[in-house]
């Protein structure tokens, strides 16, 4: 099986990965405008080179504890349904290759979440691979 290229990032202490095909760019956090009456997981909108881009608070969706944003916080611009969406993450670690044999199905660990494609174990790191479509469906429920 071919290797998968993923972008690994941290939310709090946990590490997540997103298929690099989905990732458009990684941006520093600039001014985000709050959007009134929008769903809670939407942090606001940002000016991404002249394009208004919604920014999504991943921590809100995954109901993690809010950690104060540090200077390493980034926005991961990903392509979803031909739109650009920005995901706030605490820190981007690296782009890495993940072999198919390093990925275990989430169900085998009793962590059965639809929005996970699998869990990669690389050395001592445990990276949860996100499924963007399922994640957004999950967010909207």
């Amino acid at each position, binding site marked *: 099986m071919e290797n998968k290229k993923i972008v690994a990032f941290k939310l709090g202490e946990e590490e997540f990965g997103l298929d690099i095909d989905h990732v458009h760019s990684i941006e520093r956090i*600039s*001014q985000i*405008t*709050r*959007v*009134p*009456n*929008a769903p809670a997981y*939407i942090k*606001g*909108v*940002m*000016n991404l080179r*002249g*394009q*208004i*881009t*919604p920014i999504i608070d991943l921590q809100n969706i995954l109901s993690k504890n809010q950690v104060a944003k540090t200077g390493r916080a980034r926005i991961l611009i990903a392509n979803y*349904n031909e*739109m650009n*969406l920005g995901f706030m993450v605490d820190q981007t670690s690296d782009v890495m290759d993940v072999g198919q044999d390093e990925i275990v199905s989430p169900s085998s660990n009793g962590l059965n979440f639809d929005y996970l494609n699998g869990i990669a174990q690389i050395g001592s790191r445990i990276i949860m691979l996100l499924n963007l479509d399922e994640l957004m469906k999950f967010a909207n429920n």
Partner: protein
Amino acid sequence: MDLNNYITMFIEESKEHLQTINDELLKLEIEPENITYINEIFRSAHTIKGMAGSMGFDDLATLTHQMENVLDLLRQSKLTITPEIMDIIFQCVDIIEKMVDDIEAGGTGKADVKDIVAKLTHAQNPDQSPPSVLAALNEVAVAIDMPIEDYHWSVINEAKKMGTNFYQVTVVLDENCVMKFVRAFMVLQLVEELGEMISIQPSIQEIEEDKIDNHFTLLMLSNFEAKDIEDKLLNVSEVKEIIISDKTKDNQAEKSETVKVEAEVPVKPSPETSDATATQKRSRTKSIRVDIDKLDGLMNLFSELIIDRGRLEQIARKTSATDLTETVEHMTRISTDLQGIILNMRMVPVEQVFNRFPRMVRDLAKDLNKKIQLIIEGAETELDRTVIDEIGDPLVHLLRNALDHGLESTEDRLASGKPEEGKLLLRAYHSGNHVFIEVADDGKGINREKVLNKAIEREVVSKDEAETLTDQEVYALLFSSGFSTADKISDISGRGVGLDVVKTKIESLGGVISIDSSPGKGSTFLIQLPMTLSIMYCMLIKLEEETYAIPFSSIVEITKLSQDQVVLIQNQKVMQLRGQIIPLVYLKEVLNVPTKESNIEQHQFIVIVRKGDKMVGIVVDSILGQQEIVLKSLGGFLNNLFAISGATILGNGEVALIIDSNQLIS
């Protein structure tokens, strides 16, 4: 050559010609004896036939060919115009339209044309075979010798000494050939490969401007045999015939004599071709077709520029360096002009939408058995392309509504002493920054009682309320959903979904619709539309730390209010403005703006906005000033947010949201 490159051109031109045919047919119906209309129709039909033939749409070509034959007979008065023939031709046009639509949708343009072709053939007198004018023309044109200029002879004589042959070549293009100059250039390119061209008639320039009939003649020097040249040139598609005469033996003296003879006998193209070139000339104003996407791209880039301009203005104000301020001011002027041009480029005359109405009204009037005259005024009024694309359906609704409900039947009209023929007026005009479109009829007007009864029945208003409503308010009830006052539901309108849809559509375009009516005299629907949707003036306001934009178009005035001027009426905070009571909307609460301190300031700024005749005062923290902003969509992900219609990027790169004040009112 790849035909796909030309298919868009084919579709657009076919549509233009179909429009011409439709227009002229309607005129012809009124004045059947006027031959110029038939000529116009004939020409357009002929062009469509030619194009369809060369693009390989055989069914379309066959149909237009038969239609052309009938038209030709009409033109020569060998056939008289009867309503039956008119109907057949209208049917033809409908079928052609369908085929062109099919081609546009990527289909083959195939359709069963047997029936209609049979009808057309039947309409023709079988004894009269259509004359092939063009074929006759070709033969006339071919036999002419080209004059040779004196200064060419030196070259020719030199070449003859070298044993090179000298030919006169006449190239006849297929009569259906659409882009003759392209073919001509392909031929000329080959000629250059085969030898040297001395001169050509008509001139290269005329060919470039497509001012050629279907043939042209050139003189060339070549080492090839006449037969070889002929074979090679015939390989160019749509070249019908090549006539080569070997002039190697000719000499200068003889030739110049021939020139004189030629000069006295100018080539006479048949009247029909000269007409055709005349129409071509008329339509060839200096313009180019540009993909709307490219214009959108230009617009987007320009809006980026406006944002930077705003930023520069801010910097200039802060630093107060004269040089910088002057440069920025100059840039502002230039970009304002540029903006005018760019917006103008996107403007299209409403004619594009209005064009299809005469035909629609005619058909509907026939179905309803009413006599109706449609008057169109101000079709040249221009609107932004994006608005044009959206305005068609609402107008169809209004026209259908006027035809069906507004105008009375012929008997009723006569009974009430009105002229038998109903009048329907469609008028467009500019006023300020807005475009108005008016649909007026001289029918029975809106029946106040009937509307009210219906409204009470549908529980839109209570009986008590109904008494107090003004006429305007009663008419406005027509726009509430699920409302149809027609007793009978007909095909044409009155499924109860009409007018509220119209209203929603117009409002989504940033427009307003109103009704005026007087019983027995008719009704008028007035639509007010913004000229463009992409750039607008806004007032920037602040709520705590957040900046929002309120479009100027809805703002009536801005005022200051001290806390003690706010009165509570039925749990609603209101203010008084010159004797008028205006409800207040606390924008901070509506938008859930996080507030730091709860102490309410003594003075508040109130932005008074209007929708129709309703007004509300929007309470804001402070006013930042006015700015020209570029409307940007929030994208598919964030739609239907309450009171937010879009977003814009401010000079400092921040995103500000645009307030939809209409939603705050209702």
